[in-house]
Protein backbone atom coordinates (compact mmCIF):
# COMPACT_ATOMS: atom_id res chain seq x y z
CA UNK A 1 0.00 0.00 0.00
CA UNK A 2 1.37 3.33 -0.98
CA UNK A 3 2.53 5.56 1.82
CA UNK A 4 0.61 8.85 1.96
CA UNK A 5 2.98 11.83 2.28
CA UNK A 6 0.13 13.83 3.82
CA UNK A 7 0.16 11.52 6.85
CA UNK A 8 3.88 11.55 7.58
CA UNK A 9 5.89 13.54 10.08
CA UNK A 10 8.76 15.70 8.88
CA UNK A 11 11.99 17.00 10.36
CA UNK A 12 13.17 20.53 9.64
CA UNK A 13 16.13 18.89 7.92
CA UNK A 14 13.79 17.29 5.31
CA UNK A 15 13.62 13.67 6.47
CA UNK A 16 10.18 12.09 6.69
CA UNK A 17 9.20 9.68 9.42
CA UNK A 18 6.39 7.12 9.50
CA UNK A 19 5.82 5.56 12.92
CA UNK A 20 3.82 2.31 13.11
CA UNK A 21 3.26 -0.55 15.54
CA UNK A 22 5.02 -3.74 14.53
CA UNK A 23 4.74 -6.72 16.88
CA UNK A 24 4.22 -4.55 19.92
CA UNK A 25 7.15 -2.29 19.08
CA UNK A 26 7.09 1.19 17.65
CA UNK A 27 9.04 1.19 14.38
CA UNK A 28 9.81 4.37 12.45
CA UNK A 29 10.45 4.23 8.72
CA UNK A 30 12.63 7.13 7.62
CA UNK A 31 13.17 8.64 4.20
CA UNK A 32 13.91 11.90 2.36
CA UNK A 33 11.17 14.30 1.30
CA UNK A 34 10.35 14.83 -2.36
CA UNK A 35 11.14 18.53 -1.90
CA UNK A 36 14.67 17.77 -0.67
CA UNK A 37 15.33 15.25 -3.41
CA UNK A 38 14.31 17.79 -6.01
CA UNK A 39 16.53 20.44 -4.40
CA UNK A 40 19.51 18.10 -4.26
CA UNK A 41 19.17 16.91 -7.85
CA UNK A 42 21.60 14.56 -9.61
CA UNK A 43 22.10 12.14 -6.70
CA UNK A 44 25.18 9.96 -7.04
CA UNK A 45 25.93 8.29 -3.73
CA UNK A 46 24.35 7.29 -0.44
CA UNK A 47 26.06 6.07 2.72
CA UNK A 48 23.84 4.17 5.14
CA UNK A 49 24.32 2.80 8.66
CA UNK A 50 24.42 -0.88 9.54
CA UNK A 51 21.61 -2.77 11.18
CA UNK A 52 22.02 -2.61 14.94
CA UNK A 53 23.41 0.90 15.04
CA UNK A 54 21.89 3.31 17.53
CA UNK A 55 20.61 6.58 16.08
CA UNK A 56 19.66 9.69 17.98
CA UNK A 57 17.05 12.25 17.08
CA UNK A 58 18.68 15.24 15.40
CA UNK A 59 21.97 13.45 14.81
CA UNK A 60 23.53 12.26 11.60
CA UNK A 61 22.96 8.64 10.53
CA UNK A 62 24.18 8.72 6.91
CA UNK A 63 24.95 10.83 3.89
CA UNK A 64 23.48 11.43 0.50
CA UNK A 65 25.58 13.04 -2.22
CA UNK A 66 24.63 14.93 -5.33
CA UNK A 67 27.03 15.84 -8.12
CA UNK A 68 27.72 19.08 -6.31
CA UNK A 69 27.71 18.33 -2.60
CA UNK A 70 27.43 16.02 0.38
CA UNK A 71 24.33 16.27 2.55
CA UNK A 72 24.13 14.59 5.96
CA UNK A 73 20.99 12.65 6.80
CA UNK A 74 19.67 13.35 10.29
CA UNK A 75 17.55 10.91 12.23
CA UNK A 76 14.15 12.27 13.22
CA UNK A 77 13.94 9.72 16.04
CA UNK A 78 16.00 7.89 18.67
CA UNK A 79 16.39 4.13 18.55
CA UNK A 80 18.08 1.16 16.94
CA UNK A 81 18.36 0.58 13.19
CA UNK A 82 16.49 -2.66 12.49
CA UNK A 83 16.46 -2.57 8.69
CA UNK A 84 18.38 -0.75 5.98
CA UNK A 85 17.20 -0.30 2.41
CA UNK A 86 20.32 -1.75 0.85
CA UNK A 87 19.01 -1.59 -2.75
CA UNK A 88 18.56 2.15 -2.57
CA UNK A 89 22.17 3.37 -3.06
CA UNK A 90 22.33 1.55 -6.40
CA UNK A 91 18.99 2.94 -7.54
CA UNK A 92 19.12 6.58 -6.53
CA UNK A 93 17.36 7.61 -9.74
CA UNK A 94 14.22 5.98 -8.41
CA UNK A 95 14.20 8.27 -5.40
CA UNK A 96 12.92 11.05 -7.64
CA UNK A 97 9.96 8.98 -8.78
CA UNK A 98 9.07 7.29 -5.55
CA UNK A 99 10.47 9.03 -2.47
CA UNK A 100 7.87 7.68 -0.03
CA UNK A 101 7.72 3.98 -0.90
CA UNK A 102 10.75 2.73 -2.81
CA UNK A 103 12.64 5.64 -1.26
CA UNK A 104 12.53 4.52 2.37
CA UNK A 105 16.05 4.60 3.82
CA UNK A 106 16.12 2.96 7.26
CA UNK A 107 13.74 1.50 9.84
CA UNK A 108 14.35 2.32 13.47
CA UNK A 109 12.94 0.56 16.54
CA UNK A 110 11.93 3.59 18.58
CA UNK A 111 13.40 3.68 22.07
CA UNK A 112 12.45 7.23 22.88
CA UNK A 113 9.60 9.02 21.14
CA UNK A 114 9.69 12.14 23.29
CA UNK A 115 10.81 14.25 20.35
CA UNK A 116 7.95 13.14 18.05
CA UNK A 117 5.99 16.22 19.04
CA UNK A 118 8.74 18.45 17.69
CA UNK A 119 8.36 17.00 14.18
CA UNK A 120 6.09 18.75 11.69
CA UNK A 121 2.95 17.48 10.08
CA UNK A 122 2.64 17.68 6.29
CA UNK A 123 0.96 21.08 6.34
CA UNK A 124 3.63 22.65 8.54
CA UNK A 125 6.38 21.08 6.47
CA UNK A 126 4.88 22.33 3.22
CA UNK A 127 4.83 25.79 4.73
CA UNK A 128 8.53 25.51 5.59
CA UNK A 129 9.35 24.42 2.03
CA UNK A 130 7.32 27.22 0.51
CA UNK A 131 9.11 29.77 2.68
CA UNK A 132 12.56 28.46 1.82
CA UNK A 133 11.94 27.79 -1.86
Amino acid at each position, binding site marked *: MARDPEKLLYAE*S*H*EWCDVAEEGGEKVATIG*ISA*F*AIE*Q*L*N*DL*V*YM*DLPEVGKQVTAGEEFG*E*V*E*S*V*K*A*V*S*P*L*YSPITGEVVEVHSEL*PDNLDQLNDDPYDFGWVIKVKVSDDSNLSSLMDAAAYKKQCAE*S*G
Partner: protein
Amino acid sequence: MDTPAPSGLAMNTSLSTTPLDAWHRSAGAKMVPFAGYEMPIQYSSIVTEHQACRTSAALFDVSHMGRIRFDGDGSEQLLDHLLTRRVSDLPVGGVRYGLMCNAEGGVLDDVLVSHLKTPSDRRFHLLVVNASNHQKIVDWITPHLPDFPTVTMSDRTELTAMIAVQGPKAIDVCKKLFAFDPSRLKYYQATITDQFKKPVIVSRTGYTGEDGFELIVRAEEANRIWENIMLAGRDEGFAAAGLGARDTLRMEAGMPLYGHELNESIDPISAGVSFACNLKDRSFIGDDALRAVKAAGPKQVRVGMIPEGKRPAREGCDVLDADGKKIGFVTSGGPSPTLGHPIVMAYVDAEYADAKQFQIDIRGKTVVANVTPLPFYKRPTKA
Protein backbone atom coordinates in the same frame (compact mmCIF):
# COMPACT_ATOMS: atom_id res chain seq x y z
CA MET B 1 19.78 16.88 5.50
CA ASP B 2 21.03 20.25 4.39
CA THR B 3 19.55 21.38 1.13
CA PRO B 4 21.34 23.89 -1.11
CA ALA B 5 20.84 27.56 -0.36
CA PRO B 6 17.45 28.70 -1.57
CA SER B 7 17.25 31.21 -4.35
CA GLY B 8 15.77 34.64 -4.26
CA LEU B 9 16.33 35.42 -0.60
CA ALA B 10 17.21 38.97 0.24
CA MET B 11 20.92 39.08 1.01
CA ASN B 12 22.37 41.51 3.49
CA THR B 13 25.31 42.13 1.19
CA SER B 14 24.65 43.76 -2.13
CA LEU B 15 25.27 41.35 -4.97
CA SER B 16 25.71 42.37 -8.57
CA THR B 17 23.70 40.80 -11.33
CA THR B 18 24.80 40.12 -14.88
CA PRO B 19 22.93 41.55 -17.89
CA LEU B 20 21.42 38.08 -18.39
CA ASP B 21 19.97 37.87 -14.88
CA ALA B 22 16.33 38.11 -15.94
CA TRP B 23 16.85 35.43 -18.58
CA HIS B 24 18.30 33.03 -16.02
CA ARG B 25 15.41 33.54 -13.64
CA SER B 26 12.79 33.15 -16.34
CA ALA B 27 14.49 29.88 -17.34
CA GLY B 28 14.08 28.64 -13.77
CA ALA B 29 17.74 28.78 -12.80
CA LYS B 30 18.76 28.19 -9.23
CA MET B 31 20.70 31.35 -8.38
CA VAL B 32 23.53 31.43 -5.84
CA PRO B 33 25.90 34.13 -4.62
CA PHE B 34 29.27 33.70 -6.28
CA ALA B 35 32.20 36.14 -6.22
CA GLY B 36 29.91 39.07 -5.54
CA TYR B 37 27.37 38.14 -8.21
CA GLU B 38 24.11 36.27 -8.25
CA MET B 39 24.86 33.48 -10.69
CA PRO B 40 22.97 30.46 -12.02
CA ILE B 41 24.37 27.26 -10.53
CA GLN B 42 22.02 25.09 -12.57
CA TYR B 43 18.84 25.35 -14.58
CA SER B 44 17.50 21.81 -14.45
CA SER B 45 20.25 19.31 -13.76
CA ILE B 46 24.02 19.61 -13.64
CA VAL B 47 24.37 16.24 -15.37
CA THR B 48 22.02 17.19 -18.23
CA GLU B 49 23.81 20.51 -18.76
CA HIS B 50 27.18 18.79 -18.60
CA GLN B 51 26.11 16.26 -21.23
CA ALA B 52 24.72 18.97 -23.49
CA CYS B 53 28.19 20.51 -23.52
CA ARG B 54 29.91 17.21 -24.33
CA THR B 55 27.47 16.15 -27.06
CA SER B 56 26.06 19.39 -28.50
CA ALA B 57 26.83 22.74 -26.93
CA ALA B 58 26.21 24.63 -23.72
CA LEU B 59 25.91 28.36 -23.14
CA PHE B 60 27.44 29.80 -20.01
CA ASP B 61 26.97 33.32 -18.72
CA VAL B 62 30.47 34.20 -17.52
CA SER B 63 29.85 37.92 -17.27
CA HIS B 64 31.04 37.85 -13.67
CA MET B 65 34.63 37.39 -14.86
CA GLY B 66 36.70 40.57 -14.96
CA ARG B 67 37.53 42.20 -18.30
CA ILE B 68 40.29 44.77 -18.15
CA ARG B 69 41.43 46.63 -21.25
CA PHE B 70 44.85 48.19 -21.83
CA ASP B 71 45.32 50.83 -24.53
CA GLY B 72 48.39 52.76 -25.57
CA ASP B 73 52.08 52.20 -26.19
CA GLY B 74 53.71 50.25 -23.45
CA SER B 75 50.76 47.93 -22.75
CA GLU B 76 52.90 44.96 -23.80
CA GLN B 77 55.70 46.03 -21.48
CA LEU B 78 53.34 46.54 -18.56
CA LEU B 79 51.78 43.10 -19.06
CA ASP B 80 55.20 41.52 -19.60
CA HIS B 81 56.17 42.87 -16.21
CA LEU B 82 53.04 41.46 -14.56
CA LEU B 83 52.64 38.08 -16.23
CA THR B 84 54.60 34.83 -16.16
CA ARG B 85 54.13 34.54 -19.91
CA ARG B 86 55.61 36.86 -22.50
CA VAL B 87 53.00 39.22 -23.95
CA SER B 88 55.21 41.40 -26.17
CA ASP B 89 55.49 38.75 -28.87
CA LEU B 90 51.77 37.98 -28.89
CA PRO B 91 50.58 38.83 -32.41
CA VAL B 92 47.32 40.64 -33.08
CA GLY B 93 44.65 37.95 -32.90
CA GLY B 94 46.54 35.89 -30.33
CA VAL B 95 45.30 34.78 -26.92
CA ARG B 96 47.60 33.51 -24.20
CA TYR B 97 47.08 31.82 -20.83
CA GLY B 98 49.36 33.15 -18.12
CA LEU B 99 49.65 33.76 -14.42
CA MET B 100 50.08 36.82 -12.33
CA CYS B 101 52.33 36.18 -9.35
CA ASN B 102 53.45 38.09 -6.29
CA ALA B 103 57.15 38.58 -5.56
CA GLU B 104 57.24 35.24 -3.69
CA GLY B 105 55.92 33.41 -6.76
CA GLY B 106 52.46 32.84 -5.26
CA VAL B 107 49.69 32.91 -7.82
CA LEU B 108 47.52 36.05 -7.67
CA ASP B 109 45.40 34.87 -10.57
CA ASP B 110 45.41 32.88 -13.77
CA VAL B 111 44.35 34.98 -16.72
CA LEU B 112 43.84 35.09 -20.46
CA VAL B 113 45.36 37.96 -22.37
CA SER B 114 44.21 38.76 -25.91
CA HIS B 115 45.82 41.11 -28.41
CA LEU B 116 43.10 42.72 -30.50
CA LYS B 117 42.64 45.34 -33.17
CA THR B 118 39.51 47.44 -33.64
CA PRO B 119 38.00 47.96 -37.11
CA SER B 120 39.57 51.43 -37.01
CA ASP B 121 42.97 49.78 -36.50
CA ARG B 122 43.46 50.58 -32.81
CA ARG B 123 45.38 47.85 -31.06
CA PHE B 124 44.71 46.95 -27.44
CA HIS B 125 45.16 44.14 -24.95
CA LEU B 126 42.34 42.58 -23.00
CA LEU B 127 42.90 40.72 -19.75
CA VAL B 128 40.20 38.32 -18.58
CA VAL B 129 40.55 37.55 -14.87
CA ASN B 130 38.69 35.37 -12.40
CA ALA B 131 35.61 36.94 -10.85
CA SER B 132 36.85 36.26 -7.34
CA ASN B 133 40.15 38.05 -8.06
CA HIS B 134 38.84 40.91 -10.15
CA GLN B 135 39.23 43.73 -7.63
CA LYS B 136 42.46 42.29 -6.26
CA ILE B 137 44.00 42.33 -9.74
CA VAL B 138 42.85 45.88 -10.50
CA ASP B 139 44.35 46.94 -7.18
CA TRP B 140 47.54 45.03 -7.95
CA ILE B 141 48.01 46.65 -11.36
CA THR B 142 47.05 50.20 -10.46
CA PRO B 143 50.30 51.17 -8.63
CA HIS B 144 52.31 50.04 -11.69
CA LEU B 145 50.50 52.35 -14.07
CA PRO B 146 52.56 55.50 -13.31
CA ASP B 147 55.63 53.64 -14.65
CA PHE B 148 53.83 53.29 -17.98
CA PRO B 149 52.37 56.77 -18.50
CA THR B 150 51.15 56.11 -22.04
CA VAL B 151 49.04 53.13 -20.96
CA THR B 152 45.37 53.48 -20.08
CA MET B 153 43.71 50.74 -18.07
CA SER B 154 39.92 50.56 -18.27
CA ASP B 155 37.73 48.09 -16.48
CA ARG B 156 35.18 46.90 -19.04
CA THR B 157 33.43 44.39 -16.80
CA GLU B 158 30.28 46.37 -16.09
CA LEU B 159 29.93 47.64 -19.64
CA THR B 160 30.12 44.24 -21.25
CA ALA B 161 28.82 40.72 -20.92
CA MET B 162 30.68 37.48 -21.57
CA ILE B 163 29.14 34.32 -22.94
CA ALA B 164 30.89 30.99 -23.43
CA VAL B 165 29.53 28.65 -26.10
CA GLN B 166 31.18 25.28 -25.65
CA GLY B 167 30.69 21.95 -27.29
CA PRO B 168 31.24 20.01 -30.52
CA LYS B 169 28.38 21.76 -32.32
CA ALA B 170 29.19 25.28 -31.11
CA ILE B 171 31.29 26.41 -34.04
CA ASP B 172 29.09 25.11 -36.83
CA VAL B 173 25.98 26.70 -35.40
CA CYS B 174 27.61 29.99 -34.48
CA LYS B 175 29.37 30.52 -37.78
CA LYS B 176 25.98 31.41 -39.23
CA LEU B 177 25.50 34.20 -36.72
CA PHE B 178 28.43 36.52 -37.11
CA ALA B 179 29.96 38.67 -39.81
CA PHE B 180 33.16 36.67 -39.31
CA ASP B 181 33.21 32.88 -39.41
CA PRO B 182 34.64 31.85 -36.01
CA SER B 183 35.71 28.47 -37.39
CA ARG B 184 38.49 30.41 -39.15
CA LEU B 185 40.01 31.07 -35.74
CA LYS B 186 42.52 28.57 -34.50
CA TYR B 187 42.54 27.48 -30.86
CA TYR B 188 43.65 30.48 -28.74
CA GLN B 189 42.96 33.07 -31.41
CA ALA B 190 40.55 35.98 -31.16
CA THR B 191 39.07 38.68 -33.34
CA ILE B 192 36.52 41.45 -33.27
CA THR B 193 33.51 40.82 -35.46
CA ASP B 194 29.95 42.02 -35.34
CA GLN B 195 26.38 40.85 -35.27
CA PHE B 196 23.80 43.28 -36.62
CA LYS B 197 26.54 45.92 -36.64
CA LYS B 198 27.20 45.52 -32.92
CA PRO B 199 30.75 44.57 -31.99
CA VAL B 200 31.51 41.12 -30.62
CA ILE B 201 34.91 39.90 -29.47
CA VAL B 202 35.14 36.21 -30.34
CA SER B 203 37.93 34.00 -29.07
CA ARG B 204 38.37 30.31 -29.62
CA THR B 205 38.96 29.53 -25.99
CA GLY B 206 37.03 27.91 -23.18
CA TYR B 207 37.10 26.11 -19.90
CA THR B 208 35.29 22.85 -20.54
CA GLY B 209 37.67 20.71 -22.58
CA GLU B 210 35.43 21.19 -25.62
CA ASP B 211 35.85 23.17 -28.78
CA GLY B 212 33.93 26.41 -28.72
CA PHE B 213 34.40 30.05 -28.09
CA GLU B 214 33.91 32.92 -25.71
CA LEU B 215 32.12 36.11 -26.69
CA ILE B 216 32.40 39.55 -25.20
CA VAL B 217 29.57 41.88 -26.14
CA ARG B 218 28.17 45.18 -24.95
CA ALA B 219 26.00 44.63 -21.89
CA GLU B 220 22.88 45.85 -23.66
CA GLU B 221 23.39 43.33 -26.48
CA ALA B 222 23.82 40.31 -24.20
CA ASN B 223 20.24 39.06 -24.20
CA ARG B 224 19.83 39.38 -27.95
CA ILE B 225 23.06 37.49 -28.68
CA TRP B 226 22.30 34.82 -26.07
CA GLU B 227 18.82 34.25 -27.44
CA ASN B 228 20.06 34.21 -31.04
CA ILE B 229 22.50 31.45 -30.20
CA MET B 230 19.95 29.47 -28.19
CA LEU B 231 17.50 29.73 -31.09
CA ALA B 232 20.09 28.81 -33.70
CA GLY B 233 21.14 25.79 -31.63
CA ARG B 234 17.67 24.71 -30.58
CA ASP B 235 17.43 21.81 -33.00
CA GLU B 236 20.97 20.75 -32.14
CA GLY B 237 20.24 20.46 -28.44
CA PHE B 238 21.99 23.58 -27.14
CA ALA B 239 21.35 24.14 -23.44
CA ALA B 240 22.02 26.87 -20.94
CA ALA B 241 24.46 25.60 -18.32
CA GLY B 242 25.29 26.93 -14.87
CA LEU B 243 28.34 27.06 -12.67
CA GLY B 244 27.72 23.51 -11.46
CA ALA B 245 28.27 21.99 -14.90
CA ARG B 246 31.11 24.40 -15.58
CA ASP B 247 32.91 22.93 -12.57
CA THR B 248 32.35 19.26 -13.47
CA LEU B 249 33.42 19.97 -17.07
CA ARG B 250 36.64 21.75 -16.14
CA MET B 251 37.44 19.06 -13.58
CA GLU B 252 37.17 16.34 -16.23
CA ALA B 253 39.38 18.48 -18.46
CA GLY B 254 41.97 18.65 -15.64
CA MET B 255 41.91 22.44 -15.62
CA PRO B 256 42.98 24.24 -12.45
CA LEU B 257 40.49 26.53 -10.77
CA TYR B 258 41.60 29.51 -8.74
CA GLY B 259 40.80 29.04 -5.06
CA HIS B 260 41.11 25.27 -5.45
CA GLU B 261 44.24 24.28 -7.40
CA LEU B 262 45.63 27.82 -7.45
CA ASN B 263 46.08 30.38 -4.71
CA GLU B 264 48.64 32.81 -3.36
CA SER B 265 50.45 30.16 -1.36
CA ILE B 266 51.21 27.95 -4.33
CA ASP B 267 53.58 28.72 -7.19
CA PRO B 268 52.71 27.86 -10.80
CA ILE B 269 55.47 25.25 -11.07
CA SER B 270 54.16 23.27 -8.10
CA ALA B 271 50.66 23.78 -9.47
CA GLY B 272 51.60 21.94 -12.65
CA VAL B 273 51.25 24.94 -14.95
CA SER B 274 54.92 25.60 -15.57
CA PHE B 275 54.13 25.61 -19.31
CA ALA B 276 52.66 29.05 -18.65
CA CYS B 277 55.89 30.42 -17.18
CA ASN B 278 58.59 31.71 -19.54
CA LEU B 279 61.59 32.07 -17.28
CA LYS B 280 64.29 32.34 -19.91
CA ASP B 281 65.64 35.80 -20.81
CA ARG B 282 63.00 37.81 -19.10
CA SER B 283 62.03 39.44 -15.87
CA PHE B 284 58.62 39.80 -14.31
CA ILE B 285 57.23 40.00 -10.80
CA GLY B 286 58.01 36.73 -9.08
CA ASP B 287 60.58 35.50 -11.61
CA ASP B 288 63.39 34.98 -9.11
CA ALA B 289 61.16 33.01 -6.79
CA LEU B 290 60.00 30.80 -9.66
CA ARG B 291 63.58 30.21 -10.85
CA ALA B 292 64.44 29.11 -7.33
CA VAL B 293 61.50 26.66 -7.29
CA LYS B 294 62.54 25.34 -10.66
CA ALA B 295 66.13 24.86 -9.52
CA ALA B 296 65.20 23.17 -6.24
CA GLY B 297 62.20 21.31 -7.63
CA PRO B 298 58.62 21.83 -6.45
CA LYS B 299 57.64 20.68 -2.97
CA GLN B 300 54.38 19.20 -4.18
CA VAL B 301 52.87 18.02 -7.42
CA ARG B 302 49.34 18.06 -8.79
CA VAL B 303 48.00 14.62 -9.61
CA GLY B 304 44.80 13.15 -11.00
CA MET B 305 43.28 10.13 -9.28
CA ILE B 306 40.33 7.82 -9.66
CA PRO B 307 39.03 6.62 -6.28
CA GLU B 308 37.72 3.06 -6.27
CA GLY B 309 33.98 2.70 -5.82
CA LYS B 310 31.27 5.24 -6.28
CA ARG B 311 31.87 7.50 -3.32
CA PRO B 312 33.21 10.87 -4.46
CA ALA B 313 36.14 12.39 -2.59
CA ARG B 314 35.69 16.13 -2.18
CA GLU B 315 37.94 19.12 -1.77
CA GLY B 316 39.76 19.06 1.56
CA CYS B 317 39.95 15.27 1.97
CA ASP B 318 43.38 14.04 3.08
CA VAL B 319 45.53 11.99 0.73
CA LEU B 320 47.43 9.21 2.54
CA ASP B 321 50.29 6.94 1.57
CA ALA B 322 50.07 3.14 1.89
CA ASP B 323 50.90 3.41 5.61
CA GLY B 324 48.17 5.93 6.28
CA LYS B 325 50.48 8.95 6.60
CA LYS B 326 49.03 12.22 5.31
CA ILE B 327 51.03 13.28 2.25
CA GLY B 328 48.59 15.53 0.42
CA PHE B 329 45.09 16.88 0.06
CA VAL B 330 42.29 16.93 -2.49
CA THR B 331 41.80 20.27 -4.25
CA SER B 332 38.82 19.30 -6.42
CA GLY B 333 36.78 16.14 -6.49
CA GLY B 334 33.40 14.81 -7.45
CA PRO B 335 31.59 12.47 -9.75
CA SER B 336 32.46 12.66 -13.45
CA PRO B 337 29.22 12.67 -15.43
CA THR B 338 31.03 11.69 -18.63
CA LEU B 339 33.10 8.86 -17.16
CA GLY B 340 30.56 7.60 -14.65
CA HIS B 341 32.93 7.39 -11.70
CA PRO B 342 34.47 9.85 -9.24
CA ILE B 343 37.56 11.87 -10.16
CA VAL B 344 39.97 13.79 -7.99
CA MET B 345 42.68 16.40 -8.37
CA ALA B 346 45.06 16.63 -5.46
CA TYR B 347 48.42 17.90 -4.34
CA VAL B 348 50.86 15.34 -2.97
CA ASP B 349 54.39 15.78 -1.63
CA ALA B 350 56.86 15.81 -4.52
CA GLU B 351 58.62 12.67 -3.32
CA TYR B 352 55.41 10.79 -4.19
CA ALA B 353 55.31 12.17 -7.73
CA ASP B 354 55.82 8.68 -9.24
CA ALA B 355 53.45 6.80 -6.95
CA LYS B 356 50.69 4.92 -8.72
CA GLN B 357 48.27 4.59 -5.84
CA PHE B 358 47.20 6.50 -2.75
CA GLN B 359 44.46 6.32 -0.17
CA ILE B 360 41.97 9.11 0.39
CA ASP B 361 40.29 9.72 3.71
CA ILE B 362 36.70 10.53 2.83
CA ARG B 363 35.23 11.80 6.07
CA GLY B 364 36.67 9.00 8.17
CA LYS B 365 36.59 6.15 5.65
CA THR B 366 39.58 5.45 3.46
CA VAL B 367 39.32 4.45 -0.17
CA VAL B 368 42.07 3.43 -2.56
CA ALA B 369 42.69 5.89 -5.39
CA ASN B 370 44.70 5.13 -8.51
CA VAL B 371 46.78 7.82 -10.14
CA THR B 372 45.78 8.65 -13.71
CA PRO B 373 47.20 11.19 -16.15
CA LEU B 374 45.41 14.53 -16.51
CA PRO B 375 43.11 15.35 -18.18
CA PHE B 376 40.57 12.72 -17.22
CA TYR B 377 38.62 13.50 -20.35
CA LYS B 378 39.95 14.49 -23.73
CA ARG B 379 37.56 15.32 -26.53
CA PRO B 380 37.66 12.93 -29.49
CA THR B 381 39.81 14.31 -32.31
CA LYS B 382 37.95 14.94 -35.54
CA ALA B 383 38.56 12.40 -38.29
